[in-house]
Every structure is written in structure tokens, then in C-alpha cells.
């Protein structure tokens, strides 16, 4: 026993160091896998408020760029409202439509903090669970996909962006319909990689890449980017496709959060279907 106490006394500094390192690493790895708490992320009230204050100061820096994007979006919307069309047929009666139903609900949000040079980059938004935001919802902007909500508190939420190691968004090439997973290799915030397309299908440079709508998060057809380079993977019948993102994540500010209203229905249906029961 005395030896044990002497041991602890001798190595108390190293043991204290190891204890603190252990706490830090357990925080690090548990956050990477499943976010349990909010108080150590920028979704916490303290950090969230500091970042909101900073955003109030810096949000005007990209005002011109953001205004032009909003203007373009407005024009596109103006083109689609009924009053901008000329009525050619006067004989029809308007009927309340019951064939179409809402499947997706959109919430606007502003990015108040973002990083782009780390291995895993997270964005902080100014909306939270009070605005019915939940982890697992998709986030996109008018130029392309941004990411998936990772964690949220009452007033803020953290987005796992496309610039993350294992974002794995379900995407496809628009022309041919081949689908794969979107990944990021950590080097350049302008390029991502598309993984999982077999090399017997032809991939044209410049062809459009859109979301596939299989992951119950995004609807089909939100743009991700364009093919910029194709390369064969050694030893596997796969293409290594590099994707140029259509969104510039460095100056991104306004995003939309998308909620799939029929997600639970689809999940329930899929979980009821027996896939491969081991006998």
C-alpha cells in the first residue's frame, strides 16, 4: 500500500496530465460519433450568443454578393407566380387540388459561424428546436447542398457540412442515373469526391450531379456540383470522381432547412419489410 502511495506521489503530475488528456479524448471521440450534449459546442447558449454578436458585425461584408443571389432567386420566384402569366383559357373553373400534398417543409436560416480549413467542418445556424429543427434534417442553399443538421439546442443548431470526412450524402449523375456517395478528402473546399460508381459506365466531364432522394433527407434534384475529373481506383472496378461544388461555402450565409414530413411513414414502412431474416 505504501508503495502504491509512493508511486502516485511520484507520478502525480503525469497521472493528472493523463487524466485530463483522457477526458479530452473521450469528449472528442464521443462527439465525432454521436452528439449527446450541447454545452461544449457552438450550439450552447454562451458560445451561440458570442457568435451571434460577431455575425451582427460581420454579416455586411458579403452584402453585395448575397443580395445578388437573393435578387436572382426573387426573379425566379416572380416568374412562377400566377399573376405573371397571361390567362389564355377563360372557360376553366379552379378546383381545390387533393392530388398533391406537402412532403417537404422549408425553414430559412442564417449561418453565424463556419470553418473551412479543418478536417471536419461544422456550420452554426441561428435557428434551433424552438423553430422545430431536429437532428437529421437536410440543409441546402439556392446554389446547392450544404449538409445535415448534427445537433441542436433551443436557439442554435450545428450543421455537419459537405466538408466533413463521412458526410455520405446519397447523390447521382443526372444524365445516366448512376448513384454513389458524396465524400470529402479534406484538401480543398471547392472539390469533393463521388465514391461508388462502377467503371463500366461512362462519366462525362462537366455532367451535373444532383441528390438522389434515397436517404429520406433531401428530395431528388437538388444540385451538388459538376464532375471535374475522373480517375480509376487501383484494384477496384470503381471510378474516383472529383466533384466541383456549385456552392462556394466560404461566403455562404443564407440557407434553407428542409423537413421531410413523410419521413416517419417511409421509415415505418421500410422497417416493417423483412429484409434478410437469418434462419
Amino acid at each position, binding site marked *: 500500500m505504501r508503495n502504491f502511495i509512493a508511486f502516485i506521489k511520484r507520478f502525480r503530475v503525469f497521472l493528472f496530465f493523463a487524466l485530463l488528456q483522457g477526458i479530452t479524448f473521450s*469528449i472528442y471521440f464521443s462527439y465525432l460519433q454521436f452528439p449527446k450534449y450541447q454545452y461544449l459546442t457552438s450550439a450552447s447558449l454562451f458560445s451561440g450568443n458570442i457568435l451571434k454578436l460577431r455575425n451582427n458585425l460581420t454579416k455586411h461584408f458579403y452584402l453585395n454578393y448575397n443580395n445578388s443571389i437573393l435578387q436572382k432567386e426573387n426573379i425566379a420566384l416572380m416568374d412562377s407566380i400566377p399573376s405573371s402569366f397571361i390567362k389564355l383559357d377563360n372557360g376553366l373553373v379552379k378546383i381545390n387540388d387533393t392530388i398533391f400534398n406537402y412532403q417537404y417543409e422549408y425553414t430559412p436560416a442564417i449561418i453565424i459561424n463556419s470553418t473551412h480549413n479543418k478536417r471536419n467542418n461544422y456550420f452554426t445556424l441561428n435557428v434551433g428546436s424552438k423553430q422545430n429543427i431536429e437532428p437529421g434534417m437536410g440543409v441546402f442553399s439556392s446554389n446547392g447542398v450544404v449538409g445535415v443538421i448534427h445537433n441542436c439546442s433551443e436557439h442554435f443548431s450545428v450543421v455537419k457540412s459537405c466538408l466533413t470526412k463521412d458526410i455520405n450524402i446519397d447523390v447521382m449523375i443526372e444524365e445516366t442515373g448512376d448513384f454513389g456517395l458524396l465524400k470529402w478528402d479534406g484538401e480543398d473546399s471547392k472539390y469533393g469526391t463521388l465514391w461508388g460508381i462502377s467503371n463500366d459506365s461512362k462519366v462525362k466531364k462537366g455532367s451535373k450531379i444532383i441528390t438522389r432522394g434515397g436517404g429520406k433527407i433531401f428530395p431528388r434534384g437538388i444540385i451538388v456540383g459538376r464532375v471535374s475529373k475522373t480517375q480509376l481506383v487501383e484494384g477496384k472496378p470503381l471510378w474516383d470522381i472529383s466533384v466541383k461544388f456549385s456552392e462556394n461555402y466560404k461566403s455562404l450565409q443564407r440557407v434553407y432547412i428542409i423537413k421531410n414530413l413523410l419521413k416517419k411513414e417511409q421509415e415505418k414502412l421500410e422497417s416493417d419489410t423483412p429484409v434478410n431474416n437469418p434462419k
Partner: protein
Amino acid sequence: MNLLIIHSIRFFAILIIQALILNQIEIGSGIQLMVYPLFIFLLPVELSIIYLLSISFILGLSIDSICNTYGIHTSALLSFAYLRPIIFKLFIPRDGYDPIVETNIFTLGFRWFIKCFGTLLFIHHLWFFLVEIFKINELFFVLQKVFLSIPISFLLCILLQFLFIKKSNEI
């Protein structure tokens, strides 16, 4: 008492500089600017290492919570603080350290500062990027990030001392 106030002001100043300004600057090719080790470096020499580790734990966690890095800064800063007394002993000046005098670039000289702070900063950066990337096959990428970031961080630390520490203040 006076020292306590100075160091707590420095704590908040360096937290704001690091989290709200330097983490937003992007130069490209993986360069990251980190000056917060300077705060731990400038703490008094006589301070017990247990206090040193606790202070660096708190500073690291507050930087991590603002920039969503989940503990990487804390881990690197803890290794910095743990190795500080060892490196100080290694590069001890001829007449030892004066407990009243702060260990900055003016009191102990430019060459001593490069040797001592440079070694510690290298260990800190290497640890940070190794934990962040955590893959052995991206080792070259880690080294590229380390060797590109260190010179700029080091120059910034020198600049901060020239800006905010009064030369005549020391006795």
C-alpha cells in the same frame, strides 16, 4: 495580486483573438494560425504544473466550445503545458530563471525564445494536426500543415509581444 489581474485580462484577450479573429482567417493549403500557447508560455516560471495543466484545460475547452473542434485544441494545449517545465529545464540560461521576471522575448533574449518557444510550438502543432487527421496514410498532409503553419504562428506570437508587453515594465 497585480499579476493575477494581468494574467486574467490576457486570458480573455487571447481567447477573443484566437476564437473570433484568427480562426476565421483562411490562407489556404491547410494553414491554421494558433497563438494561444503564448498565454501558457508567459505564465510565471514558479507556477506549479498542476495549476498549469488546469489553466490550459480551461482555456482549451473554451476555445473548442466556440469553434466546434470538440477537444483537439485542449489536447494539444495540455501536452504543451506538460512539456513546458521540461523544455525550460533543458534550455536553462546561465544564471537560472529569475522568479519575478516574466519569460518573454525581451527579458530572456531572442535566441532563447526561438529555441524554447519554437520547440514547444512544434510539439503543439504536430500533436494538434495528428489528432485532427488521425490517419497514418495522410502523414505527409500532416507534415505539410505543421511546417506551413508554424512560421506564421511564431511570427504572430512575436508580434503580439511587441505590441502588448511594455519593455520598460520589467525590472
